[in-house]
């Protein structure tokens, strides 16, 4: 499974668990307008670390992602 798919799947899983309605997922969608709040995104990040073994935030020296596209790119770059 691609990194992109893993990110999208986790967003759907967490949205369902937290009873949030997810907007259609497009790269230019603002993360905080996706229907997930910051707690949900924190859970997505933790789940992705468990699943992919990647924590792109660990280095500290990154820009906070604003769009879904940037968020996915963060994981794709870290997976390389």
């Amino acid at each position, binding site marked *: 499974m691609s990194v992109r798919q893993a990110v999208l799947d986790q967003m759907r899983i967490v949205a369902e668990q937290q009873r949030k309605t997810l907007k259609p997922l497009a790269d230019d969608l603002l993360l905080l307008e996706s229907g997930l709040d*910051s707690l949900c995104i*924190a859970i997505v990040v*933790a*789940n992705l670390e*468990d699943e992919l073994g990647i924590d792109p*935030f660990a280095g*500290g*020296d990154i820009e906070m992602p*604003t769009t879904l596209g940037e968020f996915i790119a963060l994981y794709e770059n870290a997976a390389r």
Partner: protein
Amino acid sequence: MPPARRSLVEITLASGRAGRTIGDETNRIDLADLAVHTNLAEPREASRGRAVLLRTRTQLPTVLALLALDGIARRVLLGLPDLKAEHLAGVIQEAGVDDVLVPPSLLRRDEPAPADRSVETEWILFTSGTTGLPKMVAHTLASLTGPLDDGLAVVPGSVWSTFYDVRRYGGLQILLRALLGGGSMVLSGADEGVGDFLARAGREGVTHISGTPSHWRRALMSGAAHRMAPKYVRLSGEIADQAILDNLKAAYPGAEVAHAFASTEAGVAFDVRDGLAGFPVSYVGPSNAHLTAKGVELRVKDGTLRIRSTRTASRYLGDCPALGDGEGFVDTGDMVERRGERYYFLGRREGVINVGGQKVHPEEVEAILNRHPAVRLSLVWPRKSPITGAIVAADVVLRDPAADFAAVRQQLLDACRASLPAHKVPASLRAVASLPVAESGKLLRPHA
């Protein structure tokens, strides 16, 4: 003879500057109007010497009522919107509340200013407790304004704002800076998204703004951070790591980025303005002239930060232990570690988990997990998060290691969701073979 006490509204109006306002997303009040108007249904004199609980959903009506009643009421309790109905009777009894007021957002009563505003009103702040009654911490205007004497307070024409609710200590500090320093105040809205709030802050020309690191991460992620251009950006309430400090400096290149250490009980102890995480070792001990001049002394004992300060809250209300030790130092419960010439924050000693500024006591979550018949033992711990600082993680030891954990896991999460707010529900939940126990017989609690 000591100088006569001046009330909050008297000090607020003393600057004499015109055009100062306080407002939220729907209302804006000219501060000069406070000289004659109140938002109370009864004359202010009706509250003389009484203990008043303010219980409004939004912040503005509580702030206006506080301005009307400071110096007149014996005690003003700044109720939080999450004060549960089932705790109301206990709060009323414990704090000796005479009246519960639910004032509106707009000024309407026109009455002459009271002649006597000399009562040393106690301001009661609520802090998040475990399950039972929220703790109530007693402050006075003097203990709350002590921390403001740091050169930031009086900046003419400043427009202050905060992501915090000003009924909480971190937000109240900002409100007082605005009111006492001759500035205006922009309150965050109860139902306002972070992007809308940032855009409004920009429109209203906010110059000074504060929030927790989690508030700020959310602001940076919103894509709307550039909608305002503050001169001063402040972080408090959680550990400010180097990444968030650097990100804010990049987002607001013209701004001073400072982080402050404060707790409801100990008051604001110090702020750090060099752009680096942690604080200099020189802050600790009786010889720091900068801090001692402000009546603050820091001590590190048993790995936690202790603060002695004239800004310390007077006491807890009700049946709670004394705030300070024999020498007047308050144990903040925040663990620090020295690396080189700096101290860095490690997390809370008792394991309180700070999820985006909301506290979670591990025991309250463990109590629910342990109720499940398949669970022998559980440990709830703070898992580090780059988004909210920490999230709640749980390890459980099953009675029967061969049990179907997937099914148990789902039941545990369902049980937690049924009785806890979302930020307290474990975000990760694992089965483990055993949990480490200290010699004291207590679970060893790791730190974030």
